[in-house]
Each structure stands twice: as structure tokens, then as C-alpha cells.
């Protein structure tokens, strides 16, 4: 398979995952705000921090109002992580690789793009937002379902999986980072358990957590579950384990496997004792840096190998 095509499929899958996860985050957060009494809301800027986009946001808006933040996340053309920009990027990447994917995949991504183009602006107000975000999540999952159930078990699929898994691991760690930060700042408020429930909900992890850990929502077990569950498909460790398997299937050299093993070692070494906020930050920073190295080695190995 062509190196260029492999790279585009990888990014197509990353953008698709990114738009799904951003929708989940925005939806869960909007939901949460409805439950909180006036005055204790942690503020909408948390969502911007999740995407590491504070500076970009500041260039476009002055006030961190709900409207501005949601607009930035859903509809902004200049924010490369907005739903609109992600859908566009996913579509462009598929447009240039549509010859290797089944025809309906292109139709679905095209419909998703048209849907977001058409609805994003109107979905900024609360009234239509949930409907819109659930629709986007559903469409993205439909597309992933189509890919998983119809694409040949072969290189194109593996490169899409690499993109999806790496993006998912990255987004889960971001969501935990920001969620935990927001919550830990508000320890005295009686609604705190709601916030934790909300964090789980944004990752579709609520019932999985209850079955595996228990009914009580405790900060540390939640963070631990989202990072190191071997069974929950959105946990960071689960994604990294799958990445390892894919990389093995693609017959990557040892160096790449070593980089992934390092992430696994870090996750497994997670301290079971309650972590301070500073420690958690440092832990996640290190994790994200390791994931970025993994991404870099994908490029060196497959997408842009020098010397040929």
C-alpha cells in the first residue's frame, strides 16, 4: 500500500475519532451544567483547556461565555479541532483515498460533513445542541462500524485503527486531565459526585465502571479505571494494548514496539495511592509526550521514510 495513502487513512481516522470525542465531551458537559446550581459552575473554559486551545481561543474571542466556547468547539472554521474543521479534514483525507475504501464509506463521511456544515451554527444554542451532538456521535460510529464490518483485514484497515486508537488514547487522557482538574478545585461542593459521573458519561464509561469497580464514584478508582482498565475499550491502556497488536501485525521494527512498551510500563506503574493534582498533571504530561513520540515513529517508519 502507498505510504501517502497510509498516512491519509491514519489521519482520516484520527479526525473522525477527534470529532466523536469532542462531541461526547461537549454533550456531557452541557448536560452537567443543567444539574449544577447557579454559581458553582466550573466555567466553560475547561473545554478549551481539554483541546489545548487557549491561545487560539483568545485570538478569536474575549469572553469565555458558553456561547463562545461552544461555537469555538462546534462551528469555528479556524479551530483545527472544531467539529467543523475535523469533519472537513476527515472528508478531505478520505476524498484522496476513497479508492481503497468501500463506496458507502465515502457517502457516510460526505453526509457527516454536509450535516455538520449545515447544522453546526444552529446547534450552538442549548435547544438543539444535544440532538445535534448525539447525531454526530451516531454518524461517526456508523462510519466506524461500516469500516470495521466491511473493510478487508489488511493494511488500510490497520492504519485506520492506528489513527483511531492513538487519537482515542490521547483524547481520553485529555478529558481525564481537565475533568479531574476542574473537579479537584471544587472539593467542598456537594455536587462533586455529579461531576465524576459526568466525566464517566462523557466517555460512555458509567455502566462499565459500575460493573467493574462498584457503584460508588470515587475519584481515584475512576482515574485508575479510565487509564488502566484492560477491558474498557476507551481506556488509555486498552488503546495502547491494541496499538501494540496492530504494530505487531504491520511487522514494525522493534524500536516502535519499545516506544509503546514504555507507555504500557508507565500506565502499569500508576500509583494506586491518591495522587495530588500536581502529580496527576505531571503524569498525564509525560503520557501525552510518549504518545506524541509514538506518532512520530509512525511517520518515520511508514509515512515518510527517508532515503527512498
Amino acid at each position: 500500500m502507498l505510504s501517502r495513502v497510509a498516512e491519509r487513512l491514519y489521519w482520516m481516522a484520527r479526525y473522525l475519532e477527534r470529532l466523536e470525542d469532542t462531541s461526547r465531551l461537549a454533550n456531557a458537559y452541557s448536560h452537567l451544567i443543567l444539574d449544577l446550581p447557579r454559581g458553582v459552575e466550573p466555567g466553560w473554559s475547561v473545554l478549551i483547556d481539554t483541546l489545548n486551545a487557549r491561545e487560539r481561543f483568545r485570538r478569536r474571542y474575549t469572553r469565555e461565555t458558553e456561547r463562545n466556547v461552544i461555537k469555538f468547539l462546534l462551528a469555528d472554521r479556524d479551530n483545527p479541532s472544531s467539529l467543523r474543521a475535523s469533519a472537513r479534514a476527515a472528508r478531505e483525507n478520505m476524498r484522496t483515498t476513497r479508492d481503497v475504501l468501500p463506496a458507502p464509506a465515502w457517502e457516510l463521511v460526505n453526509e457527516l460533513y454536509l450535516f455538520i456544515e449545515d447544522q453546526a451554527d444552529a446547534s450552538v444554542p442549548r435547544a438543539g445542541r444535544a440532538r445535534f451532538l448525539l447525531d454526530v456521535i451516531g454518524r461517526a460510529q456508523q462510519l466506524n462500524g461500516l469500516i470495521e464490518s466491511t473493510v478487508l483485514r489488511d493494511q488500510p484497515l490497520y492504519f485506520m485503527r492506528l489513527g483511531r486508537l492513538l487519537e482515542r488514547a490521547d483524547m481520553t487522557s485529555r478529558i481525564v486531565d481537565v475533568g479531574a482538574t476542574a473537579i479537584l478545585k471544587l472539593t467542598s461542593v456537594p455536587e462533586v459526585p455529579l461531576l465524576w459521573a459526568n466525566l464517566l458519561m462523557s466517555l460512555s464509561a458509567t455502566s462499565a465502571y459500575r460493573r467493574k469497580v462498584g457503584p460508588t464514584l470515587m475519584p481515584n478508582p475512576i482515574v485508575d479505571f479510565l487509564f488502566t482498565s484492560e477491558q474498557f475499550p476507551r481506556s488509555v491502556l486498552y488503546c495502547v494494548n491494541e496499538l501494540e497488536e496492530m504494530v505487531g501485525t504491520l511487522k514494525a521494527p522493534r524500536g516502535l514496539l519499545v516506544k509503546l512498551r514504555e507507555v504500557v510500563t508507565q500506565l502499569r506503574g500508576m500509583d494506586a495511592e491518591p495522587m495530588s493534582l500536581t502529580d496527576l498533571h505531571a503524569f498525564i504530561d509525560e503520557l501525552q509526550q510518549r504518545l506524541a513520540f509514538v506518532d512520530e515513529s509512525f511517520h518515520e517508519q511508514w509515512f515518510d521514510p527517508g532515503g527512498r
Partner: protein
Amino acid sequence: MPERLATRIRASRSGSVGKAWQGYRSPGCYDELIRDDGRTRPIARRLVRQLGRLSGAELAARQAAADLSIREMGISFTVYSDAGNIDRAWPFDLIPRVIPAKEWRSVAVGLAQRTRALNAFIHDVYNRQKILADGIVPAELVLDSPNFREACRDVQPAHQVWAHITGVDLVRDGAGQFRVLEDNLRVPSGVSYVLENREITKRVLPELFENHSILPVDDYPNRLFETLASLSPRRVKRPTVVVLTPGIYNSAYFEHAFLARGMGAELVEGTDLFVEDDQVFMRTVDGPRRVDVIYRRVDDEFIDPEAFRDDSALGIAGCMRAWRAGNVAIANAPGSGVADDKVIYAFVPEMIRYYLGEEPIVPNVETYLCMRESDREYVLDNIADLVVKPANESGGYGIMVGPHASAKEHRACAARIEKDPRNYIAQPTLALSTAPTICDGAIAPRHLDLRPFVLQGRDHWVTPGGLTRVALREGSLVVNSSQGGGSKDTWIVES
């Protein structure tokens, strides 16, 4: 006035299109579905009857469904303009154009005949040049042409075929006779729309297919693959065929991707390929892989910066060396464009007689060559009635339609002809045939042409029908999608 003849569906009192069709008349041209006396042609009777049962509102709903399908299927083409390149949805008219299978079979034989003669000509001019020595075609016309490529001299492509994929533009004259308007031998496009148009019709008007036996069109990608595979220099079970595209900003990119997927071939850009030891390789995640056949959708002059334009970023350096060495097949072969010139076109009937000893089955359109003094005088005297075309443009660019142009444009055109007579031909203004077309909710006659595609490798194959392009503006004869043309599904129907 055709506009007055067109009956408005919405205004039709009974609400039935059946009535609406009764007022339909072509403005003095051959109409594909309705005869001069207003009666439906026998081959189209079932179609018109079935469409007639749909109310105006239903028909409009189906057209809207078709437009939505096109958007959702992402069927698009790119228009180049000063304001930047715009990706437009493919314009499609719901009412199919119907051709009797019996008539089509003879046209298909004629197209295959023409393609054989053209390939014999290209092979001849790059090798022995017999036709030039015998004076059938003036030697300077070929040898001085910008399309004659020195780099192609003495090459012996597989089966002595150069133009493997051609898209022949056909029109019907006033009497309904099909004539060849142009041979497109370089990188003709449009075939993907033939398949997509059929797909849309099946989605939107499925009931029409119950009562008709319509020849299927979706075999094309398989036939194309077989044709390309038959050119492979290596005798392997499944040769590596690639489709070379200039990239996503090319107007036909949609089609490049469509065909690559249809054939299970890689869609490559120039940077994906490289040449080593006169062999072509592509860069893959598993390392370099040998390429056997390149179906190139890039113009000759961009194909190899070493051999042609050194500013080309689209091509592959050394690719011509590999081709000359016989290590890779290129379709269409570089240099095929020498026979795709509106002046050379005029000599095709002679080529058919010369190489094949046969009479042409599908005639040319009458053509005046401005390089001939007597023709030129006639053209200059009658410029207001003629269509003047530059020899080397495509896509409808540079054409002067006499009856639709101003006196100032006539004078400018005449001046261009006198300055460079070799580069111009003229043809009578054709009464292109028409077909019923949905325009602003009414059924009105619009002019159309037809582009069938001919494959030639070890064997040959002609698409059943082809791409019908329709000029959506009233009275317009320009059908190119880049200039406001639309398209129709084309049915070859067994009667």
C-alpha cells in the same frame, strides 16, 4: 420559440405529465424521444408513458431525490475559474435518453473501426511513416505538429496500440445520423459519470427498469482492467496497474478515484513513483514495488520532467526511459495526441480506407481546413454561419459559434485564422439533436451530444451508450460541464 412550446408541468390542468408531453416539440431538430409530429418514437413509448404517469409534483420530487443522491454520493467535478477552483455537484437530468440497440450495434462497430485506423496511423507516423510517404496525409501537418513527440520515435508498444482508451464525441445531424465530432485520444474523461448516472436513475426511478431491457454499463472497470493488464510487459498473473492522477485539484479527480477503486488499482500521484534501472516503482509501506502498467490521467508533457517539461511536478523523472525500454506500459501511450488534432481529424475517413481497406461506418462532420486556400476563402466568406475551432484545444475552449457571435467577434476570429491558418478548422453549425429535459419545472427540448468510450488492448470493447451531455441553457449548443452543461443517463434498449 422553443420556450413557448415547452409546456409548464405545474400549469398543466390535469396535473399529468402525459398531457404536458403532448405540447412538446423540438425546435426543428431531430429529437431523441419525440418525433416531428409530436408522437413518441417507438423505442421510447414505454418510458414516456411511465414518466407521464408521474404528476408534476412527483417528478419534481424525484429530481430533488436525484440531486440529493448526487450530493450524498459526492459526485462532483471541479470548475476552474478566476475566483478559484470550485467543486460542483454533477448536474444531472432525470429523463433518460434512449437509443435502439439495433442502431447502436452498427455505431459500435464503426467506433471500433475508427479506433483501429487511428492506432494504425499513430504507430505508422512514429515508425515507418508510410501514410506520409504516400501523400495521404501531408507530412508537414504531422511532423510540425506540437503533438508529434520525437521521444516516441521507433517505439513498439504492445499490440501496436497507442490509444487504449478513447472517448469519441458523437452528434446527430438534422436527419438523425450519428457523426463523429471529435476523437479524444489523450486523457478523455466522463466514463465514471456514465456509471454514476445509471446508479442514480436506478435509485430514483427504479420502476422504469421493470419494463425495459436496458444494456448494463457497470462492466466498464473490469473491461478497463483487462485492457490495461493486456499491456503488461511482465507475464505475471496479476500485473500491477496504477492510475496516475495530477491530484485532488484536477477537474476529473473524482473519476480517477472511481476508476482506481473499480479496478482495485492504486491511485498514485507522481511523487508516489520513482524510476531505478529503467524500471518504475511505487513507494509503499512495505518498501518499493514494481509497476507494470500506468493508466495516466496526466497530459503527455507533464509525464516526465526529464523528457518534456522540466517544471512538471506531476510526473516521474525517467519514466519515458522505462517506457522506451519496454519495462512499463503507459496508457494512453505518450505521443498519441498526434492524432487528436482537429485538422488530423479531417483525414480519419482516408485513414480508414488506407489502413483497413474499409468504408467508414460512422461519418465525420463536414470540415473545412483553413490551411487549404479554397476552404479558407469559404470560411472567411461565411464565418457568421460556421463554427470555428482551434486545432488543439479541448473542453469547448476557444470555439467561435458564428450564429451566436457578434460582428466584432467574427472579425477577431477571421484575423486569427489569417494569422495562423494551420491552427483552425470550421464546420457548419450543426442542428444538434434534442431531448426532453426538465428545466425550471417544465419539460423542454435541449441540445445534446454523446461520448462513448472505446477500449483497445489485445481486444476491443465499446461502452453500451456513453455519456450524454446536455446544454441546459435554451438554444445553447455547448454541452461541456465546465460551461454549464448537464448530463443524462443513456439507455441502449432492445426493442
